[in-house]
């Protein structure tokens, strides 16, 4: 299990990285933490001509407040993001989800952007970006563009990123301090990809849900935003929310599949249950599932 041969470059700026990507004409792959890419290389499932290491680009690291949100540099190590005070204070849902990514050792090297750009449908970070309405900032020699997270994913490990493009930032819109965290994951072992999982944020104003962002992972070919249930929740008073009804709506947006770890029917059945339970507990509803 040794990777096929490749060239390695370590650019020190985004511009240089984009230039290398452009020159490679589709034969380049970006490596950040490498925690998922390295196994793909070792198994020769990925065989780039050039590996572009973005760990030397300072501009791609760190967490900053920006107009209307929080920007996370894609090369920010997961362990660093977990310890970040800004995220802990203003985006606890992000931190909760990140804590379930991989293991201690892989979080020490793995990056936030790597997880997001890779597009594993059962992973926590893509679904979190989708649920929270994050925007993915993308650069290439052709210019820059921003793509909403829920338009970023096309299928398992497939995104809108062109071969010459680089993710340069992920911007999470502001969620008011005190937003409620919705998170459940059913995985057979800690650190495994989820059989089914959900992540989201809810804002309450005067006993009514005023804003909701909810995403599923492990429930289809991409992370899935549960738009129907979001719409049903927003504007509804807490005492009128029936978790079971909401769970049915939440499931309606999913498209789970069978694999040898679990069936689609299991994912739907258990997905509805964890949704109802998470919703009831998060909103402290008496009619808990």
């Amino acid at each position, binding site marked *: 299990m040794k990777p*096929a041969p490749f060239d390695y470059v370590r650019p020190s700026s985004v511009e240089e990285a984009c230039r290398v990507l452009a020159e490679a004409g589709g034969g380049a792959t970006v490596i950040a933490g490498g925690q998922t890419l390295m*196994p793909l290389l070792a198994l*020769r499932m990925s065989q780039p001509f050039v590996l572009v290491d973005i760990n030397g680009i300072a501009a791609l690291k760190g967490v900053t407040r920006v107009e209307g949100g929080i920007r996370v540099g894609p090369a920010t190590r997961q362990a660093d993001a977990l310890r970040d005070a800004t995220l802990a204070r203003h985006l606890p849902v992000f931190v909760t989800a990140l804590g379930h990514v991989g293991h201690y050792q892989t979080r020490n090297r793995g990056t936030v952007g790597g997880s997001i750009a890779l597009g594993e449908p059962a992973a926590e970070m893509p679904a979190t970006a989708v649920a929270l309405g994050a925007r993915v900032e993308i650069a290439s020699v052709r210019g820059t563009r921003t793509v909403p997270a829920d338009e970023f994913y096309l299928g398992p490990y497939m995104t809108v990123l062109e071969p010459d493009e680089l993710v340069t930032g992920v911007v999470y819109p502001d969620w008011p301090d005190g937003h409620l965290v919705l998170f459940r994951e*059913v995985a057979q072992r800690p650190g495994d990809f989820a059989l089914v999982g959900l992540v989201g944020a809810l804002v309450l104003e005067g006993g009514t849900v005023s804003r909701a962002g909810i995403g599923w992972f492990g429930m289809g070919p991409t992370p899935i935003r549960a738009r129907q249930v979001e719409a049903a929740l927003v504007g509804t008073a807490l005492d009128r929310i029936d978790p079971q009804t909401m769970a049915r709506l939440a499931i309606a947006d999913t498209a789970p599949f069978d694999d040898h770890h679990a069936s689609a*029917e299991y994912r739907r059945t*258990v997905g509805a249950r*964890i949704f109802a339970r998470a919703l009831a507990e998060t909103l402290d509803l008496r009619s808990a599932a």
Partner: protein
Amino acid sequence: MNIEAKMDVGGIGAARYVGTRQPRKEDGRLLTGRGQFTDDVRVPGMLHVAYVRSAVARGRIVSIDLDAAREMPGVQAIYTQADLAAVPVSFQTFFFTPVEAPVTLLADGRVACVGDPIAMVVADSRALAEDAASLVEVTIEEEAPVVTIADARTGALVHPERDDNIAAEMGDEDTRLAIQPLLDASAHVVTTRVRHQRIAQSPMEGRACLASPEGTNEMTVWLGCQSPHLAARWIALVLGMPTEAIRVIAKDVGGGFGLKNIPWKEEMAVIAAAKLMRCPLKWIEDRFEALTASSHARDQDVTLSVGFDADARLTAAWCDYACNNGAWPMGEDANIAVHMFMWPCYKLPAYGFVTRGWYTNTMGLGAYRGPWAMESLVRETLLDKAARRIGVDPVELRRRNLIYLPDQPHTSTLGIPVEDITPGECLEKLVANVDFPAFRREQAEARKEGRYLGIGVATYIEPTGAAGSMAPMTGETVHLRIEPTGKVVAMLSTHSQGHGTATTMAQVIAEQLGVPYEDVAVYEGDSAIGAFSPGAAGSRQGVIAGGATWKAAQLLAEKIKVVAAHLSNASVETITIDGGMVHVAGAPEMSRPLREIAEIAYGEPGRLPPGLATGLEAQYRYQPPPMTMTSAAHCCMVEVDAETGFVRILRWISSKDCGTVINPGVVEGQIAGGLAQAIGQVLLEDMPYDARGNPLAATFKDYMLPTIFDVPDFEYLHASTPSQTIGGMRGVGEGGCIIGPPTLVNAIADALSPFGEIDELVLPLTPARILDVIEQRDVSGTRASEVVPVAEVTAPVEAAPVAQVSGIDGDWNMVLKTPMGPQAMVAHFDCDGDAVSGWLEAPEGRQAFAGGVLSGNQLKFEMKVEKPMKITLKYDLTFDGQTVSGKCKMGMFGSAKVTGERG
């Protein structure tokens, strides 16, 4: 956690090491990165091997294009079977009998499973070898594969030259005629079916081989194995080389679990290629290969029916067992041991079975910790199901049927004698230490809150330390000496892939000799050291090597005493050895360090008693009783989350009788390791194949081993009834992996009982399959698609028209398919009318028979044999011109096939 540790320890020295948690001798090097695993060894000029493997399960190789690969810089050679055929090999089973499937080093014209090695690339580095391997173009004319046991019954022949896909077969459908009426007459009949998934043994270190030719016909092989001695003998046999020409070294091996009992295709191809190239070659199996192309285990489909009388006492049982042998099993296997060991610890009046191994186009079957473990799984889960059905407590049901000490000696219906097993006593100890009524109250309370707790119990016995009835299963030799420095050296043929044999053997020696544990060094892991033994196989090392060291140390102590008595002018009885000092009773001033005695024994022979050999050495080979039984009862408590189907293990208590415990830390480590693997089998691990014969768990993401969060803290009760062996040990290596699965399944089934029975136990019990039971519908999506077993209809055999027999007098070359592999023999028949006499000759010797009866073309005769045990063989042969076929009824072993032709 040790609830109660009671040791029965002997020993002559004041310092007691046996029964204590001595720190392991192996740990110093392993903890500091100084171990020597095969991949850590480098030999000058060494080249690296990678394999080109089949991506299809079955087909004819049309072409292999090596041109592009050969041109790659750094590639030194590429071999196909056409090249390696220059080194003749004849693959053997672990039992040193021929493998029946036409195993070759590399694919010979056909591929029979995904992962089948087709070509071997030798290059300057492994990475280069893999580069070149990816350039080899293989064209295969793909055929529809035979993947499951059901496929094998009806599908194409896996090995076209064979008659059918039955790899091995024992037992007798006719017995059913005797069993069925007993079942019909029983008050209750309970039937259960278990489908055990395919397991990848998954030692943390994969297979590994470094073959270094030395001289013209000698070879040093560093090998990941379970016994350098067995491996050396096996390799020599397979290659037709003298045993002394092969030296196998395996200092550290990262786990074996049965997989590394014998080398297989890849290791042997490395050795053969090293012979051809005359240079050292290394192959280190990567995890992708380890999961998809190492021999697998289990993959069984078993149905057991058991009758009970109105008092829940056993009346009769019938079992139909099938096992997927894959394409290239490490010995065709119908797993007769499942049937042999299913009932010796229970009072069962009648038992019958048919048991078969099936060839398929999947990776071959290998051994795995407790290869016969199905007997406990199917029996113990059935007993719990019966207890629920009949309305008896599971413990009570076992009490009514188990063999207790006062019931012994006892012989099972299949002829297995037991005289000192304690499954009942282990169960009583368990019940005395675990508050079952309190758990039942807690369970009832929890159910009111929608929480589902369950408790499961299982009991079993296990044959360990086998010696003398199968070719590789032998005694153990220890070579023990005290160096002139006073330090002790033991040379052993034990082998640790984690077993800690250097530790436990040193404990026995230190105690029996009266020296500090720290002063004993144990050398093992090299076929050049010690005498033949199969190392770690069949839970035997503590039992047999323990007995050997026990006795050898006593012999050496006697010699020391003789010398010391002579030097001190005292009588031998007054001498004691303790803490490395030699004392004379009543004369403390005459105490002297062992070193002084040793210096004299080696350097001043004139001071020794006349006629006594110089030096301080002893050698002893211990031949233990043929089998030593270990018993246990386990209990486990779980909580099942009815919403998600997840299982949480709350407690697990082991009540085990493994006789004298040399080192509780090591013994508990063996039990725990086996139990963790049991948990993996029940809940997590699975190597599924798709319909095209592709293995679906190619990484550790998909093949899920238990993590620290999946395994609870185990609690131990040691029963410790000394066995009949020197030292009184009983084997402990495999037990956890045998009794663990039914214990956990029973706990889960108990938790699920408010919802229904687990009708058919399909492993692993994934969360989805548990929801199947809870919701009584097909949540897992596997129930509907599962193949319904085709009832085995055995059409009555039409009486064949009596053919004209042109006399059967003379010699016939026959093959008897025994449980240990095919046995070739020459049969000679002399007819006098219908009366036939003659002899059978096998390598072990010739035995005559008389009283045979020939009717038409059918010959029946009987023959009594002593080995492997006393049984009467009943032959029933049918002659058809120049060929003969039929069966041989082998007492408890059931029936074995016989084929042959005129000699």
